[in-house]
């Protein structure tokens, strides 16, 4: 399984080169890999639906970190969307991107990489594995929405999507860590077992609740639930294949998948199901309502997706058997009808040059094929037989009718309202795209098979899956098996099927259909082009972001005043204020300190002290720099005397380099330290702070060196292990083997410092050259960028 995920990433690396050779071959290779993944999953299906198929790679066993994947019913359903629908969208994309498109190569590689991440996400069997793939999908989504970054609209949309989903993702990470600490495991099956047995932190319900809410925050942001939903319609700035794949079929379902994954464990807890179901229902209704008022077909579909995601949240949040069956059916149905609808919009956009329903006219007659495929997909969206959408919606109504009680009936009513709106916006979509509205007819160019073919395949699969409902039942039953059947005995044996005994669900469908059509027909004035009210989630997002920026500017303006003494003073004052008292109160000075170990330490130490005192008295900067160097070399000498040649070597080299850097900078500084009168007044406080800080650091060193309670790590077995690590030099063994992770981290910090120095020094040059005009960060000239990049 890991190999399949890795194959996606490897292919993604090769694709840019391949796309340079031939664009369609690159997309074809991607489609082939995705289709191959689907076939592989289909072959594994019998095992996956039975005991499940696992794969495990130890990452850092000491920390309990591992990559673990597991294929089960839920994963299989998502693979149908990620790989199956994904393959069709790759073919579609091959025809969508023009022959001279500069976006094609990047998009092909990123789409395949994204498919790999998404595959990892749906297969993840471990919360940390899931989190890693989760954030990777956010990042690829950012790149795919942002495209080349030439257009402001794309950049804004990409940033908003990233900010919202990564905010949720970080909250989720907190929740995951909290949950993992409470349960002592990150493995999802173990967590589920502990939660159902009631042994998961029974004495700490508050901590568990906080963890669950934080995890839900990740799911709600990723799946565009109220009030985080506006990023999804804005992300429609991306090219249509990307919208169809990320924002309809796969990525936005990640939140739903997370709720579904943890549903069997936590659905019984009110802290889990109340937010999921309340926000899900609200999202379903609000999304449908907003969809009714869109004039851009793509945005209409995007709000439709928001609404359907709310629906899915409700189904998986309920945590009952029938609702779960309905959830899996709707999950598949949504991917299979929303992707072709997006493809149709893309084709219309290509053929007519617009996707505004006020401008489109007469397309139904001129492009009959597109109209038929859109209608087929639309019927599934509206929940009409014999589509999979109908099967799912019937099951959904049945689930809450069977459940009964306040929750059941309230939810059922909400679902009927949401379905009614769904029918209405479906009708609006089909009317807007294909009707003849007495305007100038649009739509000249014929649509190539590469654009219409994938849409046809997808929509027809939707019908086939509706007719072959028992097959979907197989997959869904594997997921729903552990969930409690709420309601009577019928709930325990309910199965997904195209036809059940007529009852309330069928009545609900009829009500939704009639109401929706009526709303579309008569309600156009009501839903028309009314402006968005004051309570807008998008405004909320913008207010938060601008507020943050303003706060950042205020705080930075107060703190970063450009005075080195103030910065140093702040650092030293913090050092004195925080660890200082602790050290003074609790530290014990060790009694076994000798004045010196070796007689050679005395002269060298004296030299350091003298140089330090002289440093304070220096008038010229150059003298001061040389004295700093003398102090450094003196300390290097102490290292030599103490028998640490490695340390000494590094100290001498760094000292030399520092000296050189200082001399470079000195060329631009005045030769003398000038002392205005204001400086003279603060001299005593400065000296006091510096002296206390210095004494504190020295004292800390002495106290901490005596505070050892455990035997040092560098004893017997450790030193004996050094030659095994390939280095007879213990220091090297520590650096490159025992503590190699630290080394990698440190050199990363160095890289950041180098990049930062280069950017700061070279950026100010160009900002200055522009003659004092205000240049905000990140808007450097091309020359400047070239300079910074070397």
């Amino acid at each position, binding site marked *: 399984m890991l190999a399949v995920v890795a194959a996606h990433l490897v292919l993604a690396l090769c694709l840019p080169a391949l796309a340079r050779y031939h664009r369609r071959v690159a997309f074809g290779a991607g489609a082939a890999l995705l289709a191959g993944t689907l076939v592989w999953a289909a072959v594994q299906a019998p095992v996956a639906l039975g005991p499940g198929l696992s794969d495990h*790679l130890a990452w850092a066993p000491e920390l309990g970190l591992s990559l673990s994947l597991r294929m089960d019913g839920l994963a299989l359903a998502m693979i149908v969307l990620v790989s199956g629908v994904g393959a069709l969208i790759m073919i579609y994309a091959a025809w969508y991107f023009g022959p001279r498109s500069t976006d094609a190569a990047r998009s092909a590689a990123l789409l395949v990489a994204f498919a790999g991440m998404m595959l990892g996400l749906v297969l993840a069997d471990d919360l940390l594995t899931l989190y890693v793939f989760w954030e990777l999908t956010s990042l690829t989504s950012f790149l795919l929405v942002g495209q080349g970054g030439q257009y402001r609209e794309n950049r804004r949309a990409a940033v908003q999507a990233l900010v919202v989903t990564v905010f949720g993702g970080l909250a989720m990470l907190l929740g995951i860590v909290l949950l993992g600490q409470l349960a002592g495991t990150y493995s999802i099956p173990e967590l589920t077992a502990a939660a159902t047995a009631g042994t998961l932190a029974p004495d700490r319900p508050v901590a568990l609740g906080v963890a669950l809410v934080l995890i839900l925050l990740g799911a709600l942001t990723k799946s565009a639930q109220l009030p985080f939903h506006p990023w999804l319609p804005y992300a429609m700035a991306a090219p249509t294949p990307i919208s169809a794949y990320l924002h309809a079929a796969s990525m936005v379902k990640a939140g739903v998948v997370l709720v579904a994954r943890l549903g069997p464990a936590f659905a019984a807890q009110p802290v889990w199901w109340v937010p999921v179901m309340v926000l899900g229902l609200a999202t379903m209704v609000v999304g449908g309502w907003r969809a009714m008022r869109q004039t851009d077909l793509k945005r209409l579909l995007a709000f439709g997706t928001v609404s359907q995601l709310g629906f899915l949240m409700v189904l998986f949040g309920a945590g009952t058997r029938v609702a779960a069956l309905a959830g899996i059916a709707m999950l598949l149905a949504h991917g299979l009808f929303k992707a072709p609808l997006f493809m149709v919009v893309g084709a219309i956009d290509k053929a007519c040059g617009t996707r505004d329903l006020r401008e489109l006219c007469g397309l139904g007659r001129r492009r009959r094929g597109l109209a038929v495929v859109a209608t087929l997909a639309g019927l599934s969206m509206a929940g009409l037989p014999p589509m999979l959408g109908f099967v799912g919606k019937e099951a959904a109504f049945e689930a809450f009718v069977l459940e009964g009680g306040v929750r059941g009936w309230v939810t059922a009513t909400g679902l009927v309202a949401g379905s009614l709106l769904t029918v209405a916006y479906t009708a609006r979509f089909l009317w807007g795209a294909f009707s003849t509205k007495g305007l100038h007819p649009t739509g000249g160019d014929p649509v190539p098979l590469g654009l219409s073919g994938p849409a046809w395949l997808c929509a027809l699969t939707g019908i086939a899956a509706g007719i072959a409902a028992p097959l979907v039942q197989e997959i869904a039953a594997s997921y729903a098996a552990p969930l409690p059947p709420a309601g009577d005995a019928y709930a325990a044996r309910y199965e997904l099927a195209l036809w059940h005994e007529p009852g309330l669900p069928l009545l609900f469908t009829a009500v939704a259909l009639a109401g929706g059509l009526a709303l579309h027909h008569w309600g156009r004035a009501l839903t028309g082009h009314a402006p968005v009210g004051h309570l807008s989630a998008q405004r909320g997002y913008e207010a938060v972001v601008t507020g943050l920026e303003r706060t950042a500017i205020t705080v930075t303006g107060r703190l970063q005043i450009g005075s080195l003494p103030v910065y140093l003073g702040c650092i030293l004052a913090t050092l004195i204020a925080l660890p200082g008292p602790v050290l003074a109160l609790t530290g014990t000075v060790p009694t076994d300190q000798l004045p010196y170990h070796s007689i050679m330490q005395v002269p060298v130490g004296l030299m350091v002290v003298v140089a330090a005192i002289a440093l304070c008295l220096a008038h010229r900067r150059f003298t001061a720099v040389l004295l700093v160097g003398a102090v450094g070399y003196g300390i290097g000498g102490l290292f030599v005397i103490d028998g640490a040649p490695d340390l000494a070597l590094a100290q001498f080299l760094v000292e030399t380099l520092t000296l050189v850097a200082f001399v470079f900078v000195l060329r*631009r500084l005045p030769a003398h330290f000038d002392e205005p009168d204001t400086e003279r007044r603060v001299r005593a406080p400065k000296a006091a702070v510096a002296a206390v800080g210095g004494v504190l650091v020295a004292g800390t060193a002495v106290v901490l060196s005596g505070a050892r309670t455990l035997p040092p790590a560098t004893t017997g077995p450790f030193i004996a292990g050094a030659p095994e690590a*390939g280095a007879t030099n213990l220091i090297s063994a520590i650096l490159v083997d025992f503590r190699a992770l630290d080394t990698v981290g440190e050199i990363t910090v160095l890289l950041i410092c180098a990049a930062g120095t280069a950017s700061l020094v070279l950026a100010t040059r160009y900002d200055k050259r522009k003659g004092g005009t205000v240049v905000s960060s990140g808007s450097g000239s091309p020359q400047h960028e070239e300079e910074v990049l*070397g």
Partner: protein
Amino acid sequence: MTTSEQAPGGTRPTGGGSDDARAEEAAAWARMDQPSGRWMLPGACPDARERTLVLEAAARLLFPVVLVFSVFLLLEGHYGPGGGFSGGLVAGLAFVLRHIAGGDDNLGSRFRIRPPVVVGTGLIIAVLTALAPAVFGEPVLSSVKWTITFGPFGHLDVVSSLLLDVGVYLLIIGVVLDLLRSLGSGIARDAREAGEDVAGPGGAR
């Protein structure tokens, strides 16, 4: 620098025919230690007043030697003091020397080096070395030791973590080069454009 491109002193043919052979010999002798690789040359100095010949000659002689020494330190690190960090710093100081002797922003004029690329390459090598064991099913960052025997000359231990050290080595060189680029030539050019009189990279005010 311009002198290096002309023939060294004494090569101008003199009038006397019998002197030709001796002149040729002298020329060959003079060319004996002429740097053959252009990358060894210090960069050209735009302003002749800023040149110090002794430093230039010393830099030309020392630069390759110090680079070799830095590689020695890198490899030696497994047995004694040294390692990627020290080796990289020594190599970086070699570049500092060349910069001080020869030149302003022509550090890369003979053999163009882009510091960010060097830094990035170093980090990539280090991270790939860290991740590589995962491919073979070992924990990340574990290392392997191969022992090569050279018969009577003893044996050599080659450790996979040496690659990590190579990454550190390159990264440090890149950081130093970046420092030279931004603080060295960047500041100097900045000052010259501002019309200030600033001493060359080596000189103090």
